[in-house]
């Protein structure tokens, strides 16, 4: 498990993260959502070990992140940044092969190329392996970089947990590719990889995530199963938009869709958000922090009713 516990982070006097707890569990696809500037990328960098946490601990597989040798750490977790430009004229396949740098056989083995080509095919880029990276479109570049990350944590021993930390991998992708990418990530998670994905499309998060954490102004506002975390009142409070929950015939999940108009700020939502301000560090499993159950537990207050209004019959996630 890759876990941040009560993490604070700041840069130049500006607080980026306050008292954040998240757990990236192998086998689970976790989506991190939140408004611009909420601290999503900072949290990802803290989990990657790139940004040192001012307070709190980050542990990977039970060992503090800073105690991991750099190269071994890189074998167990890959990070995809928002956009990556490459110096010098490299082909897409060259870029993917860079993912093997933490491993012994880097560039010395033709089976590495087979692995790279296979991952390129998985992200739907098999025809472009020989193309210059600089001539690819933004979305194609992102998929090549995703393939590089998959190659980086590829070929692990059995039972060895690995992690993928992805900062908006779907930002430049078309609708079809967005869904294909998240399907791929969920499938990959099932092979024992903990996946954290930052996304802006809440419907995408609701449709594919096993677990959703909502970050706002450096705090985790709510974390839990998609139907618990992505409720209209929470979204209205955090993003300031009105949301309708859409039920699709092909999925048992309720998908939030933004609609024009001010968010419904019911009395309930206000008290709810006040409660959230008091207990901002909600994380799963709830046993870790007893107060964390506040969101998931059926409160007598309005929020629960708000959810049941639009989602009267929540069916279990059958996507597994």
């Amino acid at each position, binding site marked *: 498990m890759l876990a941040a516990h009560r993490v604070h982070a700041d840069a130049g006097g500006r607080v980026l993260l306050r008292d954040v707890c998240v757990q990236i569990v192998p086998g689970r696809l976790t989506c991190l959502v939140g408004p611009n500037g909420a601290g999503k990328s900072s949290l990802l960098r803290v989990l*990657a070990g*790139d940004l040192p946490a001012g307070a709190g601990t980050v542990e990977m597989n039970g060992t503090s992140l800073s105690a991991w040798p*750099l*190269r*071994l*750490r*890189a*074998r167990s977790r*890959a*990070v995809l*940044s928002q956009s*990556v*430009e*490459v*110096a*010098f*004229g*490299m*082909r897409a*396949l*060259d*870029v993917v*092969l*860079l*993912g093997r*740098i*933490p491993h012994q056989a*880097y*560039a*010395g*083995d*033709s089976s*590495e*190329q087979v692995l790279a080509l296979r991952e390129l095919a998985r992200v739907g880029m098999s025809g*472009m*392996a*020989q*193309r*210059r990276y*600089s*001539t690819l479109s933004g979305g194609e570049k992102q998929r090549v970089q995703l393939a590089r990350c998959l190659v*980086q944590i590829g070929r692990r021993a059995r039972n060895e947990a690995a992690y993928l930390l992805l900062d908006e991998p779907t930002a430049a992708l078309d609708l079809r590719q967005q869904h294909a990418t998240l399907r791929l990530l969920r499938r990959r998670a099932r092979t024992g990889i903990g996946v954290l994905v930052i996304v802006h499309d809440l419907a995408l998060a609701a449709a594919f995530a096993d677990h959703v954490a909502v970050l706002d102004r450096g705090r985790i506002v709510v974390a839990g199963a998609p139907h618990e975390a992505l409720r209209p009142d929470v979204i209205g409070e955090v993003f300031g938009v009105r949301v309708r929950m859409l039920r699709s015939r092909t999925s048992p999940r309720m998908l939030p869709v933004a609609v024009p108009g001010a968010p419904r700020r019911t009395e309930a939502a206000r008290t709810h958000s006040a409660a959230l301000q008091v207990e901002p560090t909600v994380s799963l499993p709830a046993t870790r922090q007893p107060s964390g159950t506040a969101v998931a537990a059926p409160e007598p207050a309005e929020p629960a009713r708000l959810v049941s209004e639009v989602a009267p019959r929540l069916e279990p996630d059958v996507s597994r």
Partner: protein
Amino acid sequence: MNGAGVPAWRLVGRAGAAREPMSDAGVRTLLLVCCAGVALLSLAAGAVAITPADIARIVAGSAGIGEAGSGDAALRAVLLHIRMPRVVLAATVGATLGICGAGLQGMFRNPLADPALIGVSAGAAVAVVIVTVAGNWIDPGGRLGLTLPSIAGFVGALATVSLVHRISLRSDRTVITTMLLAGIGVNALAGAITALLVHFATDAQVRSILFWTMGSLSGASWKLVAVAIPVLAVSALMLMPLHRALDAMMLGESEAGYLGIDVEATKRRILRGASLGVAMAVAATGVIGFVALVAPRLMRLLCGPGHRQTMAGSLCIGAILLMASDLGARTLAAPAELPVGALTALAGAPLLLWLLRPQREAELEP
């Protein structure tokens, strides 16, 4: 290079606009043949022509094989004491410039980076001008002679790079953009100091300063070679193991960090290794431009962007370029000698412009 025989950069099949790089073995053979050919030509050609057969006989004779003392004594003297140290020094300095250029371009993530960017040549120039102008006070008897500017150039180059590096440190992190700007500032400052000092120099001193800034291998001696080769070895041994880190840094510094590379240590080592090598080169021969810029570029054209090949090949290409330029410098206007720095620029600049053609740009540029 690559023992397994399948380099990452040589890719299966041929598709799209991308140009297929040559195979590793092919490039190695090509470079070694070129290197040997240019070296032999350099030894043979000059004011006194020496046939390859004579070269072989003299070298064998001095090594104790065959009849010792055979052949013309004058020919022997020319080959062993004038021409050979010069060719070896040209190869050494060229190789040093090549590998240092490759390392610095990798660190700056820019195929147009050059050691001059970080103030090596400007700093060496200031020091050399100081000792040239003030030489009469420092070394009135001229006992230190030729080595004084060399030592000054070496020290000046290293001092300037460490100054530029220090300016670019932000809480122990080397900030590359700051380093570029600091390099520009220090270059300007050094240029101003040089200009002021030149103003106070005598005509003869101005002449020697001018020739120093255009580079020359005429000071070559076995003594100089004996210093230059170990420095090249140290520099290459510092840079070569960093090929993996430099490959990762093609993705950017934070991505390299995510790939398990200690980016700060890499940058420090590159700076140390490259400044040591370039300082030696400047001290030995004066300012020689373009070799450090063009050698890695040519190598990337041949083999793709992997740094193991780029750095190893730049050693070879740098040696070839400088030996060929010096051959031209000695023979084109014989008995006069052209400044070799001008020749490398004369050959290198058009080559660079040719490499910048639009269709090439599509292939090479980020």
